[in-house]
């Protein structure tokens, strides 16, 4: 994941919020709810053409949000190696009509179909999420979640995490640089693992000490147990249009799925 953080998005505080695009002007709440509705409908569907349509719809959202296409698609396609492994194994573990045999194990069409189904669903949801919510400024995400009745404590925790990820990442890079200066080269040996462990331990110690300073500074400024969230969000006509359009598209997907299942 490190390469993704470094490649396109330098910090979490500086995000695609300035990208413009038609979606950027929408109410963040509409975008969050839209992404959730999209995910639920897509996960509920299993007919291949519907899933392809969902992926196309997500691609349309990506186009509307004006995010850079190549890095977004790369991020969409990136999966944990164990998931890739899992999908690759599916044709062999689902019984059905054989496509070919490999070392005595038969690959089935049904298993392949299931693997493709999961791939389409996962990529469609991630693409829609990255286009609708990932383009938001992280702090805006916090404000919008707060307006959506997410508990304040959780929102504050989210805001603090967003604020300090970059700070701590810089600290981590400083410590790594210091290790490099002293000739540390990571390898598969006890010395490397111990050094990485000390690195993590040092990061935690510094994090706690930083949090003590943060709390002190907050109290100094009159922190009384509540953090005001100032952002005002207004649900406008374009948001209604967006909700209606996305809602109609999702309804159409569900209708197609139900019609296919009924046949």
């Amino acid at each position, binding site marked *: 994941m490190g390469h993704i953080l470094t490649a396109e*998005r330098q910090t979490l505080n500086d995000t695609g919020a300035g990208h413009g695009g038609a979606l950027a002007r929408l109410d963040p709440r509409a975008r969050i709810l839209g992404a959730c509705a999209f995910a639920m409908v897509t996960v509920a569907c299993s007919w291949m053409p519907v899933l392809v349509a969902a992926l196309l719809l997500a691609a349309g959202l990506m186009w509307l949000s004006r995010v850079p296409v190549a890095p977004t698609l790369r991020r969409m396609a*990136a999966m944990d190696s164990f998931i890739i492994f899992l999908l690759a194994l599916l044709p062999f573990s689902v019984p059905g009509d054989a496509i070919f045999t490999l070392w005595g194990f038969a690959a089935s069409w049904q298993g392949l179909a299931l693997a493709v189904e999961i791939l389409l669903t996962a990529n469609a949801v991630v693409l829609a999420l990255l286009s609708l919510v*990932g383009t938001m400024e992280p702090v805006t995400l916090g404000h919008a979640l707060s307006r959506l009745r997410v508990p304040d*404590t959780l929102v504050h925790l989210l805001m603090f995490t967003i604020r300090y990820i970059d*700070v701590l*990442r810089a600290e981590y890079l400083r410590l790594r640089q210091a290790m490099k200066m002293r000739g540390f080269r990571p390898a598969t040996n006890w010395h490397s693992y111990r050094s990485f462990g000390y690195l993590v331990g040092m990061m935690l110690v510094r994090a706690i000490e930083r*949090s003590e300073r943060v*709390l002190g500074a907050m109290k100094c400024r009159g922190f009384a147990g509540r953090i005001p969230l100032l952002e005002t969000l207004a649900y406008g006509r374009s948001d209604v249009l967006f909700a209606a359009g996305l809602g109609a598209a999702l309804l159409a997907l569900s209708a197609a799925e139900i019609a296919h299942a009924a046949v």
Partner: protein
Amino acid sequence: MHIVDGALANEVVIGGAALAAGGIALGLRRLPLEKIPAAGVLSASFFVASLIHVPIGPSSVHLIMNGLAGLILGWAAFPALFVGLLLQAVFFGFGGLTVLGVNTVNIALPAVIVYYVCRRGVTRGTPLVAAIWAGFGGALAIALTTALVGLSLMLSGDAFIPAAKLVFFAHIPVMVIEGLLSAAAIYLAAQVKPDLFDAMKGAPS
């Protein structure tokens, strides 16, 4: 270990979401606003720790460190790790949206279990004893996480069973590495800042 959308059965997704909501609620109840800065900064540091790649043979693994998170944060590990997973899903496209609950339980429940099993051993005794308990906790957390990931998959369909088993055995080296790293981290912390474990103390339980 992020499961993606569409792989799990609906019952597993809904059950995971309910369990995660319960765990997060419990964690938040133990988190007065005084402790939010500490929890937030720690949550951020575990997020950054997950960016660290540790070499293992010709390949490398990224850290999870949920055992360490449990040892330090206790129940607050639930909301803290959830926040990390939410940010990873929304801004990096890791995992998915409907599976957020399942993924949170798979990472945070082992953290809480490690808290109950190893916390006493880590806070009392010499740095060496603390390190041994932390090493055990770090490895245990990954073992439990892998088992829970396997369980979520198995409950979703028999087709996943062979893969789930293989994933568990493939993660044994990761358990060893996380155990070693957790032990070293706590060995250092116990010497440099013994009150690290009091960071979350004082919260009403």
